[in-house]
């Protein structure tokens, strides 16, 4: 085996080998397995009855077929096909043909003729349909061959007159998928009697079978997707299909109308039964609105969804969707919304409703009332009141999209969205809150609306409350009463659900920042200051008081007159909060104080460039250190690392970048230290010390490289090479250290081999990057590879040692965006002195709440670790549903960790922390999947060889005080 490996490594250094390798494998396959086709042939000949044959075919279908033997198999199948009388067997063969032509690497044009031939003599409709399906597969496999496609389309057209719906269905599907898209091809086609595809498909809009009608519309949509510009003439046809009896047809027709409305938004269509004309997009909008009250909910969902994306529609049509004329006993009635608005504008508060408060007023003309409205009237009113929550969600989404593009519409739909906050299904409520947040730039909430919004703060669902906090962060409130109301409600929320603390503070921060002038008149009341009397100093640890302060301080930032209203203790509290909750409390210019705090100015933008420059300069300096003496290099590295770390602390934007490079330099520093000549030259008895230093260095470098590779988001393959290269060096170092400390050669053999294997795989992965690595460790190593392969371990070690020392330090290119994954455990806080008591042997649930930033795929990678005082560690995989995604790059983990232990005599602390699991195998496969050679070779190797799994702790551990009590008897 070893010899074989060496040979392979050696051979693969030249490029020819890979092909040989492939050849070898196929040869092997031919030798070991008897040909598939032969086996099948024998089986089919043996089959006495159709049922038997079917069984054989079924068995055959379960196994994959190699590329080379596909054609042979196809021939045998076809041969059998002609002989077979039983339709079911023929059907299976036809489907097998389709499956086989899907085989990767097989070009099906050779079997196309046969497939078309079989089509001509076939009687069974089912088999025909299946054959057409096979042709479709063949056609899609040959996208570069227009003449083949033409031929297939022709065949399909011929079978369009078949009496079975299945056959017609498949024909249309085939035409839709393969029909010519470019005009040029179409012209050429005319001569071949294949007419305009659109016309052919259009003719089948009136087919007697609903399935065929659906297929026709779908084929049309397929053509559109493939880039064919549909003709406007189809529009009227499609409109007729909206009244079809079958829901699939209607659903597809709605889609088609939508497509057409996007294609020809501005063209004019006449309104039937009148002389007026309107824009097509408006007409289509009206029609789709009409479908929102369709009988089938599938169509309703479809229609409601599509409404959202029709942004060119004119505004009066849009506003009609929210309008539903109310009447009662033939008299016009105002909606509750209008009444609320009126009450509000007249400056009066709803004094409780009297009976008949909503009594209708004006008489209306019976003729003018149009009960079934032609246009878009009330589409959303219906959609939002729908029975199925799917429709309601779709309607809310559509509202959101339309409101984002039209501020006036946003203003109008506000009432309806606010109403949706009381939906019976939580998903709908959540969706409408999110929608509201998205459009909140366009709107200002009235007090009565705010009131309704705030009422939802008491919802028992955490998601709803947090979504609402987010919403409040970016809403505009019109009056100071509104702010007050919001504050009061938020404080109420805080007392009811203390866990919402963080999110409420954050919400108030933005609320204060947005409305400084509205907060100003409220300050005395909020701080309960009095012109003459000193009021007692509030408790600084009270979350409610902190909440109020957060609101005020943030407002004070842009309102310089406010601090004058503060009392002494407020200033003291400011200083305290500025330190303890610096992310919530902005720096203020306070009159009595030196502007010490403003040294770290919040306006980062002017400073950004210099610091970036600084980063690059210091790196530049490091990379040019070759001509320095080793001591100088070490010092320089140490300084630079220190600088970078400090820079990361100061500039949050550059933190990721700075940390990343600092880590890299740290690795280099460790490497240099470990390789210092002096250490290696000492006498044998002192090996121990040197050994400890070098091996810890190697270990640390390995750890750091994993961190670099997996903890940062935005790492590109250029960086991965460098990181892996560093890791390789560390491994070399490890090898050297073990070689020097262990007696005997036997264990070394294995290690050397493993190392060479790694070098080999490194080379294979990054073959394209190698030219950039002139003079590096790997570069040199690869030069020496032929020698290494053949030499003894001790020699290998020697070579490694010299190359390590001679190799140059690689320049680490920086990507544009680099973020370090961070996690912060909010809950448990670790401050509690009361131990969590539970009976030993039973479990206790510990709520864990953490925010994660810049973690890719947290569901797969983030784990919770619990460390017990006895050293026992427990790893918990949170459920995917426990992760929420409040914003880009941010995640929130809210989960429960189950703890259990045997009885303790006294309470003790356990540690909870978050880990980032990585698997080198997986990440490579995902990042480098385009390189097919690599992924193929990966499959060939057992995964454990390359897949290094491990975890990186990436949050501060939190201590939890627990006490398992002995069970009582």
């Amino acid at each position, binding site marked *: 085996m070893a010899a074989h490996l060496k040979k392979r490594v050696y051979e693969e250094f030249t490029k020819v080998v890979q092909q040989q390798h492939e050849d070898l494998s196929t040869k092997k396959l031919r030798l070991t397995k008897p040909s598939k086709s032969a086996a099948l042939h024998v089986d089919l000949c043996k089959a006495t009855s159709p049922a038997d044959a079917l069984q054989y075919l079924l068995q055959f279908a379960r196994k994959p077929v190699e590329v080379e033997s596909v054609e042979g198999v196809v021939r045998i199948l076809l041969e059998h096909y002609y002989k077979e009388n039983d339709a079911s067997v023929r059907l299976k063969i036809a489907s097998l043909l389709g499956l086989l032509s899907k085989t990767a690497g097989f070009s099906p044009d050779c079997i196309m003729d046969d497939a078309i031939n079989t089509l001509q003599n076939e009687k069974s409709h089912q088999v025909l349909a299946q054959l057409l399906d096979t042709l479709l597969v063949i056609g899609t496999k040959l996208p570069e061959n227009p003449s083949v496609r033409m031929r297939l389309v022709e065949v399909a057209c011929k079978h369009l007159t078949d009496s079975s719906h299945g056959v017609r269905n498949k024909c249309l599907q085939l035409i839709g998928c393969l029909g010519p898209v470019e005009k040029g091809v179409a012209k050429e086609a005319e001569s071949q009697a294949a007419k305009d595809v659109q016309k052919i498909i259009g003719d089948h809009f009136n087919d007697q079978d609903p399935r065929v009608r659906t297929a026709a519309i779908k084929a049309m949509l397929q053509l559109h997707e493939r880039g064919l510009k549909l003709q406007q003439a189809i529009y009227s046809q499609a409109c007729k299909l909206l009244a079809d009896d079958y829901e699939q047809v209607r659903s597809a027709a709605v889609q088609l109308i939508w497509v057409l409305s996007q294609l020809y938004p501005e063209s004019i269509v006449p309104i039937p039964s009148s002389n007026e004309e309107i824009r097509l997009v408006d007409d289509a909008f009206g029609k789709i609105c009409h479908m929102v009250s369709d009988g089938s909910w599938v169509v309703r969902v479809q229609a409601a969804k599509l409404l959202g994306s029709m942004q060119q529609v004119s505004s009066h049509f849009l506003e009609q969707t929210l309008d539903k004329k109310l009447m009662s006993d033939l008299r016009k009635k105002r909606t509750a919304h209008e009444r609320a608005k009126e009450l509000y504008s007249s400056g009066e508060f709803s004094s*409780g409703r009297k009976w008949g408060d909503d009594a209708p007023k004006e008489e209306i003309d019976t003729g003018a009332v149009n009960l*079934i409205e032609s246009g878009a009237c009330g589409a959303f009113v219906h959609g939002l*009141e729908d029975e199925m929550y799917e429709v309601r969600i779709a309607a809310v989404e559509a509202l959101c999209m339309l409101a984002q593009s039209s501020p006036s519409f946003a203003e109008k739909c506000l009432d309806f969205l606010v*109403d949706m906050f009381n939906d019976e299904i939580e998903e709908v409520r959540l969706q409408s809150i999110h929608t509201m947040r998205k459009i909140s730039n366009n709107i200002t909430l009235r007090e009565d609306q705010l009131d309704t919004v705030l009422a939802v703060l*008491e*919802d028992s669902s955490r998601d709803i409350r947090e979504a609402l906090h987010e919403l409040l962060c970016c809403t505009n409130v019109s009056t100071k009463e509104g702010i007050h109301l919001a504050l009061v409600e938020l404080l109420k929320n805080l007392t009811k659900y203390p866990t919402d603390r963080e999110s409420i503070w954050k919400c108030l921060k933005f609320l204060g920042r947005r409305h400084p002038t509205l907060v100003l008149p409220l300050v005395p009341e909020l701080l309960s200051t009095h012109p003459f009397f000193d009021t007692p100093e509030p408790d600084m640890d009270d979350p409610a008081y902190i909440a109020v302060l957060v609101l005020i301080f943030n407002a004070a930032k842009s309102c310089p007159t406010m601090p004058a209203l503060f009392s002494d203790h407020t200033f003291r509290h400011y200083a305290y909060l500025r330190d303890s909750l610096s992310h919530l409390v902005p720096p203020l210019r306070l009159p009595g104080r030196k502007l010490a705090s403003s040294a770290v100015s919040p306006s980062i933008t002017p400073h950004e460039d210099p610091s970036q420059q600084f980063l690059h300069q210091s790196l530049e300096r490091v990379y040019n250190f070759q001509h320095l003496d080793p001591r100088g290099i070490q010092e320089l590295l140490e300084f630079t690392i220190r600088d970078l770390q400090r820079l990361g602390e100061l500039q949050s934007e550059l933190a990721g970048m700075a940390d990343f490079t600092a880590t890299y330099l740290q690795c280099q520093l460790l490497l240099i230290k470990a390789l210092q000549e002096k250490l290696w030259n000492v006498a044998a008895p002192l090996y121990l010390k040197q050994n400890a230093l070098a091996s810890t260095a190697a270990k640390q470098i390995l750890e750091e490289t994993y961190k670099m590779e997996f903890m940062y988001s935005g790492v590109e393959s250029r960086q991965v090479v460098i990181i892996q290269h560093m890791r390789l060096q560390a491994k070399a170092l490890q090898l050297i250290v073990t070689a020097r400390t262990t007696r005997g050669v036997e264990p070394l053999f294995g290690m050397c081999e493993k190392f060479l294997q790694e070098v080999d795989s490194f080379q294979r992965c990054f073959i394209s990057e190698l030219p950039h690595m002139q003079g590096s460790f790997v570069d040199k190593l690869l030069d020496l590879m032929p020698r290494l392969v053949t030499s003894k371990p001790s020699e290998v070690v020697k070579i490694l040692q010299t190359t390590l020392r001679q190799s140059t330090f690689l320049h680490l290119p920086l990507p544009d965006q680099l973020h370090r994954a961070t996690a912060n455990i909010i809950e448990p806080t670790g401050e509690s002195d009361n131990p969590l008591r539970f009976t030993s042997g039973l479990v206790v649930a510990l709520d864990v709440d953490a925010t994660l930033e810049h973690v890719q795929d947290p569901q797969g990678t983030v784990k919770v670790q619990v460390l017990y005082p006895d050293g026992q560690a427990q790893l918990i995989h949170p459920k995917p549903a426990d992760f929420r995604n409040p914003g880009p790059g941010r995640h929130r983990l809210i989960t429960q960790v189950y703890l259990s232990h045997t009885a303790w005599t006294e309470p003790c602390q356990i540690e909870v922390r978050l880990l980032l699991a990585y698997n080198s195998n997986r990440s490579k496969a995902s990042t480098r999947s385009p390189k097919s050679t690599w992924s193929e070779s990966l499959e060939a190797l057992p995964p454990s060889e390359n897949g290094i799994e491990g975890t990186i702790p990436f949050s501060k551990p939190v201590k939890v005080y627990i006490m398992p009590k002995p069970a009582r008897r």
Partner: protein
Amino acid sequence: GAGQDVGRSCILVSIAGKNVMLDCGMHMGYNDDRRFPDFSYITQNGRLTDFLDCVIISHFHLDHCGALPYFSEMVGYDGPIYMTHPTKAICPILLEDYRKITVDKKGETNFFTSQMIKDCMKKVVAVHLHQTVQVDEELEIKAYYAGHVLGAAMFQIKVGCESVVYTGDYNMTPDRHLGAAWIDKCRPDLLISESTYATTIRDSKRCRERDFLKKVHETVERGGKVLIPVFALGRAQELCILLETFWERMNLKAPIYFSTGLTEKANHYYKLFITWTNQKIRKTFVQRNMFEFKHIKAFDRAFADNPGPMVVFATPGMLHAGQSLQIFRKWAGNEKNMVIMPGYCVQGTVGHKILSGQRKLEMEGRQILEVKMQVEYMSFSAHADAKGIMQLIRQAEPRNVLLVHGEAKKMEFLKQKIEQEFHVSCFMPANGETTTILTNPCIPVDISLGLLKRETAIGPSADAKKPKLMHGSLLMKDNSFRLVSPEQALKELGLAEHQLRFTCRVHIQDPRKEHETVLRVYNHLKGILKDYSVQHLPDGSITVESILIQATAHSEDQGTKVLLVSWTYQDEELGSYLTSLLKKGLPQSTP
């Protein structure tokens, strides 16, 4: 009943010789004979069972089923009565309650007894939604979901190809416990629709719900008590669900009570018939049945005096008697408390008085009760509004519409609208009036497969759905119709076949010889009729398919040739075409 009127729903439909009675309700407004429909209308003498094929009850409200025991037991009907499962379960409870009130409280005699209710219920056949029930060989009925109350259904009655849809009461907007009515495009000949809210378009339900919840919530937070007088079934459950979910959502702790008795029994049925409720309840019942209330407990008289906030649902709904009135008297004095009237109140009841703003009420025993508590009115109704009715008509696409269960004036408006929008005729008969609707019945005819295949093969095969002309002979024998090929018909009837030939002479001016003329005609026809086989026979005649053309010289004028065209009647089409062609003459220039 129910013609231009609300209450006492009872509609008689005769369809294709079958008689069906739709609903059998009582009228709330009367206490004499008028409270029940006049069944003598159906038949003067003879038994009802002989005359009626079946009775269908749409839902359990008394104005739709109140007269059922009277009708079946006292007047006498033994045929089948159809209703849905929930209706069958709840209906007897309500009937028994109704009986108790009239007999025990008002002391009426000559009323149906409990035993009669039981006997009546034995005649009931329960149906499922969308289940097609064959009443007899020809008559079939099918139930559709109608919303309104638990178990309410719309019925399609079908005989042959004629059909009627009766809606009963229905609701097109879903509420907290029931879904919206739905019907497929069944295209009935007649749609009988209720029209309670013929002239109303309602506001969104959410506003009302929100107001209701907000009011309750505020009062409870203040520490006040809320009294909600309700009738036992229908709205009460909706409000319960509403409050229950709200309590759950908002984590409220104040107790909610429900007066016991009737309601508890009804709630039990609501729990059972989950499939009849709306999407939310159906989806979540696996975790928890929404009708198993967590926060709502049974009420005890003593609780009314408990301190602290609470919400109480109490019967009856109009505050005219019973528990709700008792509680009202206890709580009326405190301005922190609130009473919410969720429905309409009849004049003269306490409910009506306080809603109209009266603050001092005179109670029994000359007592004056001062009402300090807040009085609120919330309307929750489960009938379709004008828009809903139109929507249903659009869904079902009927050929005629008939409006019942509403006021004449309002119906007039809706009728006009329906005729205008859908171009279908609309009727609104008064009680006792009969409306006759002409239908276009189609008669199914058996056809032999061979003939069908042969006939469809002729002519363009596209649009097979459209009506198509076929040739064949219609055999009417033993009350069955069959379409067979002429040969078979002759064979079956034992008749000999007669050949029928049409002959026609066409004069053509042609001076040439006969055979030349024939040749010219031949060439001409050959040129025109490319798709047919035109042959020139040796005996000097031409055949086009089976049509024979012979030419002879005119006896008097040699220049005129007479063409004899002869065809059998099967080839009538081609033959007449040929004649008209020849009549036009031959083309002049024939080389």
